């Protein structure tokens, strides 16, 4: 059930249909106005916290805690900024987040497309069993591994390093599954065979022939992977002890506990974590959404 359903989802996500399906008449003009009002109201609800975040970043606590609360930008952005970088190594955390997420994403793209290619274009003994096992691991809840994984990282002397945040997930079941589905349908077997007859090395076939054809799938997986790693919280919170190694969410979580700290400063920190992803999203929302739809498996 899962596989076919996912394929449908993927197909639908790959090319959002322009002309629409439902030809049923919804209602007359009054009801239509109500429907648009409802949709617009919800869109406002979805967007308001972001607007509030931007506005609040520019105020001091004294202004934020007044009635009515500030609804427009204030003069205190620079003061909040100075407080923020005094309270935590913000730029350092930002750079750490960028570095970890980028490195992780690049490695995931490589290992998952390689694994997906292996499953899609070779017929080897044990293929079905190995693939079924891979799918089954997707259904294992992460909670069971949290404590023992921490102990293992301790044995490996990897606590307070970036290794635990990067290495375990670089060849993950979801990415391989997703790449296999795509390569299966997007890369013609003839193309691979022709290259093989020409004497191309197996790895060269993957690198020179397969990779160029599957860039849309790589882009979608890249978006998903990067966003997931960027927002990841529990695991880095557990692993990272040295403030200089913190990622943004971990650094931000310490702001919550600083007693009597400025609200505007906390919110400015949140702005710093949200804006990079939000800007990319607003610039490429279509690709983002289709990437996530495909990732609904997760």
């Amino acid at each position, binding site marked *: 059930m899962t596989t076919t359903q996912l394929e449908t*989802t993927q197909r639908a996500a790959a090319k959002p249909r322009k002309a629409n399906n439902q030809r*049923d008449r919804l209602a007359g003009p009054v009801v239509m106005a109500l429907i648009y009002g409802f949709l617009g109201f919800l869109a406002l609800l979805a*967007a308001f916290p972001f607007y509030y975040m931007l506005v609040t970043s520019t105020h001091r606590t004294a202004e934020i805690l007044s009635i009515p609360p500030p609804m427009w930008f204030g003069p205190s952005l620079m003061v909040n900024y100075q407080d923020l970088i005094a309270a935590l190594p913000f730029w350092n955390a930002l750079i750490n987040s960028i570095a970890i997420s980028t490195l992780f994403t690049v490695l995931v793209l490589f290992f998952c497309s390689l694994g997906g290619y292996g499953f899609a274009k070779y017929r080897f003994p044990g293929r079905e069993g190995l693939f079924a096992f891979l799918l089954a691991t997707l259904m294992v809840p992460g909670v069971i*591994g949290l404590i023992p994984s921490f102990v293992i990282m301790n044995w490996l002397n990897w606590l307070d390093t970036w290794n635990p945040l990067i290495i375990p997930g670089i060849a993950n079941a979801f990415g391989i599954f997703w790449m296999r589905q795509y390569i299966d349908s997007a890369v013609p077997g003839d193309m691979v065979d022709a290259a093989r007859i020409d004497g191309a090395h197996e790895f060269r076939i993957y690198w020179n022939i397969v990779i160029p054809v599957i860039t849309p799938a790589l882009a979608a997986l890249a978006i998903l992977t990067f966003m997931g790693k960027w927002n990841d919280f529990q695991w880095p919170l557990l692993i990272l002890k040295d403030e200089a190694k913190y990622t943004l969410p971990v650094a931000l979580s310490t702001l*919550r506990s600083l007693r009597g700290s400025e609200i505007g400063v906390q*919110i400015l920190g949140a702005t710093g974590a949200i804006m990079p992803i939000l800007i990319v999203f607003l610039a490429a929302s279509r690709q983002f959404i289709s990437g996530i739809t495909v990732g*609904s498996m997760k």
Partner: protein
Amino acid sequence: MATLTVDQRRARDRANTWKEIKSNRWAYLFISPFYLLYAVFGMFPLLYGLWLSLHVWDGISPMRWIGIENYAKLLVDDIWWQAIGNTIWLFAAATTPQLALALVLAFIINSSYIRGKEFFRAAYFMPIVASAVAVSLIFTSLFGQRYGMINFGLSFFGIEPINWLNSRQWLKPSIALVTIWQWTGYTMIIFLAGLQSINPELYEAARVDGATTKDVFRHITLPLLRPVILFQVVLAIIGAMQVFDIPVMLAGGTQSSAPGGTGRAGLVSMVLIYWTAFKYTQFGYASAMAFILFVLIVIFSLGYNSWQGGNPTD
């Protein structure tokens, strides 16, 4: 060929299999990273976690075997069951409205009479791209009792200021609201993708037969979307039972000495496991909790699946 003995045939098959394996050695190499990593960082922790749960261990001194004592203790641990109760409460209160709202929105937006689909899709989807920690900081401010924007808004309807984050009564609803805010758009997008894969001719046919919008929704959309809904519910169960980021941040943060906030109303199982293991250094006891939670997740998702997934309509 026909004269081969059984042994000879077996030997030949073996040789063939071996030849096949050898000729596909690159494929094995290509897929091997997953299995190597999973063995070390997936499979082994699973078994080791079970092993840990049968011991008393503070993470430093030698482990002491106590059999199933941790599990026996858990059965009568009120805090643990409170955490499980909170988790299930949050799952019900956050997931049900989220799925229902997402379904209705997907149905409306999929309709051919709605303009600006791209805009609404993007707007509803925005919350999910934001870090849950950052979102929690924003909502902590929005939920402020005396000066928060939400109470300010409610005051226009004559509603007295609500103590959202520091009362036993309102902490869970606050967590549920933030979860709904963050996840509804995402769920809607998944449903929308499912709707777009429904054959448009079905709608045509229904219209020709004079079906109303309500009929179409109940008799075409819902049954055909069933597998997608089913799958989303199972994913929601798995996700909600392990929720951590939003509850921990709204209920006092990661340095809090009273996890779960006032009256432990926001204490979910994942937060309790985290504190038990890494703040109170009871690794064995926390591992037993993790294992029980794991079993509950499996029971709930399989249970739901066999309850709802039993009779496919298509």
